[in-house]
């Protein structure tokens, strides 16, 4: 198998995830040390690295930090979004289970940069076994003076607490996550104000994904030029790719941004099991586009994916072999969004219910004249009218299937003898 390019997962699995000492021995917490010595240069260094958020939105991390750094407040917060709920993603779990100190170090660097003294990790309830590791690793870091008061003898305070969610996909949306931390239903807030200015309990809050934060230590130690030597011009660095579905070697692998889907599928993942042929790939998670096998040469990069009609998202690839039925998969995906819609905004609450009804009509061959147009119109309304990313992106798989397999919906109804709307 191709050798991985390990930055975030460097030494992951080689050392105890709990022990700060072992992490220090492999050069851990050196990025934080550097950050504490030259506080005012941190944000410029991160900006120069070109690091973009790894949770799916791809927002420039340095820019996000600068908004919060420039906001005056009595208290600021760093929140790590570890509510990894996107079906087909478990990269953050690997980081937290194998090398959690790198995440703590990244959070501390971000805290020093913006002047925050309290951090939280919002961990999804589906990862109870990860919580155990994080608690032990946090206690160890606290004992060693790496987090808590007077970190590394610098006079700076920064502590991290664990917050366990309770089973809700929408809580991965940053403002829903904040509401959840405040003891409420996880319902997305209207933006602006953005969390960077007005977040947790109204205070400026940096919310970043586990992988994003775990990139900061190496950037501080090795510098932006080194970081830019990997990945693409507009999205430098490496990415943790999750391969799942009908693939011989499912799992999480770290490679430079821009690695092609074909490389990941053939050389890393070993192709479909049992010699089956690949039919389609869902890119970027459950809310990402489904693309045909003919587009395998698309590089996994934010811009290249957008251009080809794929989705970079959080770097997930779900492979579907020749035995899969796309309408069956679409039904499953839409059931997921219908279940997970929080219900706050009408286009999402009602829209996903109607999308599911329509998909089932097509699947059963009972679609009526006009249903295809209705599906398109509804999808477009949801993309523009929903409050948060859940509703805005839940039509993506459907629209991508309509684009790449234009005959599928029609054929399916024909096959069942329903010619009504053709």
């Amino acid at each position: 198998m191709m050798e991985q390019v390990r930055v975030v997962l460097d030494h992951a699995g080689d050392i105890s995830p709990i022990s700060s000492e072992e992490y220090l021995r492999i050069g851990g917490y050196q990025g934080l040390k550097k950050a504490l010595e030259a506080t005012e240069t941190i944000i410029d260094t991160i900006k120069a690295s070109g690091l973009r958020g790894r949770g799916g939105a791809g927002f420039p991390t340095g820019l996000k930090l600068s908004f919060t750094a420039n906001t005056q407040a009595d208290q600021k917060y760093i929140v790590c979004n570890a509510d990894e709920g996107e079906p087909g993603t478990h990269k953050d779990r690997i980081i937290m289970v194998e090398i959690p100190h790198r995440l703590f170090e990244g959070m501390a660097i971000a805290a020093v940069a913006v002047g925050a003294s309290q951090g939280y990790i919002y961990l999804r309830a589906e990862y109870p076994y990860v919580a155990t590791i994080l608690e032990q690793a946090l206690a160890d870091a606290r004992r060693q003076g790496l987090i808590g008061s007077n970190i590394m003898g610098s006079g700076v305070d920064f502590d991290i607490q664990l917050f366990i969610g309770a089973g809700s996909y929408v809580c991965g949306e940053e403002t829903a996550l904040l509401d959840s931390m405040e003891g409420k239903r996880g319902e997305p807030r209207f933006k602006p104000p953005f969390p960077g200015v007005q977040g947790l309990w109204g205070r400026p809050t940096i919310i970043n994904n586990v992988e994003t934060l775990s990139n900061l230590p190496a950037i501080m130690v090795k510098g932006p030029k080194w970081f830019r030597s990997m990945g693409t011009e507009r999205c430098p660095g490496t990415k943790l790719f999750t391969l799942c579905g009908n693939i011989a070697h499912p799992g999480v692998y770290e490679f430079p941004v821009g690695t092609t889907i074909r490389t990941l599928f053939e050389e890393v993942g070993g192709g479909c099991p049992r010699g089956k042929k690949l039919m389609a790939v869902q890119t970027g998670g459950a809310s990402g586009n489904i693309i045909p096998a003919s587009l395998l040469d698309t590089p996994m990069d934010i811009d290249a994916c957008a251009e080809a009609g794929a989705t970079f998202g959080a770097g997930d690839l779900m492979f579907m072999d020749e035995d899969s039925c796309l309408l069956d998969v679409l039904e499953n995906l839409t059931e997921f969004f219908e279940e997970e819609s929080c219900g706050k905004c009408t286009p999402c609450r009602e829209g996903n219910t109607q999308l599911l009804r329509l998909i089932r009509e097509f699947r059963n061959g009972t679609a009526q004249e006009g249903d295809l147009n209705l599906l398109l119109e509804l999808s477009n309304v949801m993309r523009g009218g929903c409050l948060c990313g859940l509703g805005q992106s839940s039509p993506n798989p459907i629209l991508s299937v309509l684009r790449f397999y234009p005959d599928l919906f029609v054929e399916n109804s024909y096959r069942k003898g329903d010619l009504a709307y053709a």
Partner: protein
Amino acid sequence: MTTREEQLCVLEEVAAIAAKWRDRPDMLIPVLHEVQTIAGNCIPKEVAMTVAREMRIPLAQIYSAATFYSFFSLEKRGKVLIRLCRTAPCHVKGTKETLSAFEQALGIKAGETTPDGLFTLEICECIGACDVSPAALVDDTVYGHLTPDKVRELVASLQETEGSR
């Protein structure tokens, strides 16, 4: 909870947990996790009312949160929670077969609890175990690469462990 005495005992424990966080509405979710565990994997009305009284939070707000999150349940559930992932990465690898194997082995449908009160079978959304799909979360442990045969073995071993307790 069988007898009234036991119920009152649980409510006392619930009150003690909730009272630690009086006027801290932000602690509601951690408190609900904790009280649910001691109240038999569910949040019955008396428990919700006790939490509301002790934390000084309106009862409506307790229900607002308790009914929103899938890990909370108002209905009584079994001692062991079996959560079978139904999302796409598991689905394309055979959730349907594993689900019917679970239903047959336990003698219940998804969403139900076995008559002896030991097991509840839930269908859930992604548990982030796509590398070992199809997968299920049994309390705090992930079981992956499930096949109908493996499911039968798993249920048998769980029944043995629980039965001997």
